[in-house]
């Protein structure tokens, strides 16, 4: 979670939200949340679990989002 927050604080192009899955079950279901943390970028589920900073950047900056 903190990497997403750090990215949002560092870039005006990035916004980051934590979403408590049990409190918003319909939304969590729509994003196929089975384990947490589940990372969703621009409305598309991406991966589960914590990753190192460089991998996080690799993934959010992947060409699919460019």
């Amino acid at each position: 979670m903190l990497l997403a927050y750090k990215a949002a604080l560092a870039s005006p192009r990035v916004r980051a939200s934590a979403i408590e899955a049990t409190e918003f079950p319909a939304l969590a279901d729509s994003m196929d949340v089975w384990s947490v943390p589940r990372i969703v970028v621009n409305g598309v589920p991406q991966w589960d679990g914590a990753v190192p900073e460089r991998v996080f950047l690799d993934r959010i900056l992947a060409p699919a989002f460019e």
Partner: protein
Amino acid sequence: MCNAVTLGFMPIFRPEEEPRVRELLDALERPVELLVALGPEETPLPGARDIEFGAETQRIVEGIAALSERVTFRVEEEPPGFERYPAVAVLPDGEDVGVRYYGLPWGYELASLLGGVLEAGRLESALTPESLERLATLERDLVIDVFVTPT
């Protein structure tokens, strides 16, 4: 533990945690404002319905703000820029930079909100220079949602 009355008497931080949290908040280099957004709530999973999510969220935010002069908070009903309630926006220097927590930040997730406050209180990013350079090349907007649970 799963009802509003019981939760209302639970301390936000354990007694042994509070000095540590106070110490962390003392390190804030700029003011951080927490905007608590309240509004219509969804029906949560069975067993959780007795919790007043909005009121509890406000209580937790008050508890964090009580530990530092640099942390302030305000509460608004259905402010613009929020998709669901309750929510907390973390505003460095009172500015909305897109950092949000949706839901009640309890259990392990209190650390996420607190971490957001600590990061927002930094004048310089904790990311590596390499990461900052890479972020600076972004030409599109990114909306990152991280689904979490408190246990």
